[in-house]
């Protein structure tokens, strides 16, 4: 169990780090997909099967594919240079390290985080579905609306300009 966690954790961090450091955008997309998959595996070790599969379906199946398509369409493979927020890259890495340090120290200072794994809860898909349709029905509806808005927006924004006049 523990070695399994260590391996998955290392794989997640290494592929995430590679995705953020590599020069070739296609390699970055591949690495981030690996990171998404190993996170899904971590969700499985935490007995959250449904979220694990949703993670694979949405992140690997949709987001990673979208990223690859965007890379192909923008034909902009090289990803080095300056950034929007911080001009020198050292500052960005510094902020990242600072956040990492403060988060990790906050985690280690909290006693309750030493908790051992309790027995597995019986969270069936049926229970998930029931609470999605009762307590969580409002957020679910809002997510539906949000996806509609995003779909509308994505179509409007990415449509070719010469189709501008008419509606196909």
């Amino acid at each position: 169990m523990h070695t399994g966690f260590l391996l998955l954790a290392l794989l997640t961090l290494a592929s995430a780090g590679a995705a953020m450091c590599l020069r070739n955008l296609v390699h970055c997309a591949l690495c981030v997909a690996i990171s998404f998959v190993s996170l899904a595996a971590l969700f499985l070790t935490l007995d959250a099967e449904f979220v694990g599969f949703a993670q694979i379906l949405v992140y690997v199946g949709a987001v990673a594919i979208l990223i690859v398509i965007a890379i192909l369409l923008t034909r902009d493979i090289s990803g080095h240079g300056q950034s929007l927020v911080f001009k020198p890259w050292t500052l960005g890495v510094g902020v990242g390290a600072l956040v990492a340090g403060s988060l990790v120290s906050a985690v280690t200072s909290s006693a309750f985080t030493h908790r051992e794994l309790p027995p597995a809860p019986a969270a069936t898909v049926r229970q998930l579905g029931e609470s999605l349709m009762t307590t969580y029905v409002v957020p679910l509806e809002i997510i539906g609306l949000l996806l509609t808005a995003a779909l509308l927006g994505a179509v409007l924004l990415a449509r070719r300009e010469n189709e501008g006049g008419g509606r196909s």
Partner: protein
Amino acid sequence: MTTLQSYLILSALLFSIGLAGALTRRNAILVLIGIELMLNAANLNFIAFWRYGPHPEALTGVMFALFSIGVAAAEAAVGLALIIAIYRHYKTANLDKVTTLKG
């Protein structure tokens, strides 16, 4: 056995990697990838807190993770569509070239 702490530290590191990437990379697609990693780190927190928490039957953490996955997908869709539209105009997805608004 793995403790809750190991999951939380993993998630904190993943969050920071994503943040550092989003702050330093110039290509808009990479910035979005960094932000997706940060959201993933948060999801790992939700699942870990839910699994180790006192009331796993309430499903709160799992629900939030599902909603967060949905939101991330929507954000990615709009974001990448916008990047494609930007590319049509500037012939680049690099953010330091996209600077007409100043003052």
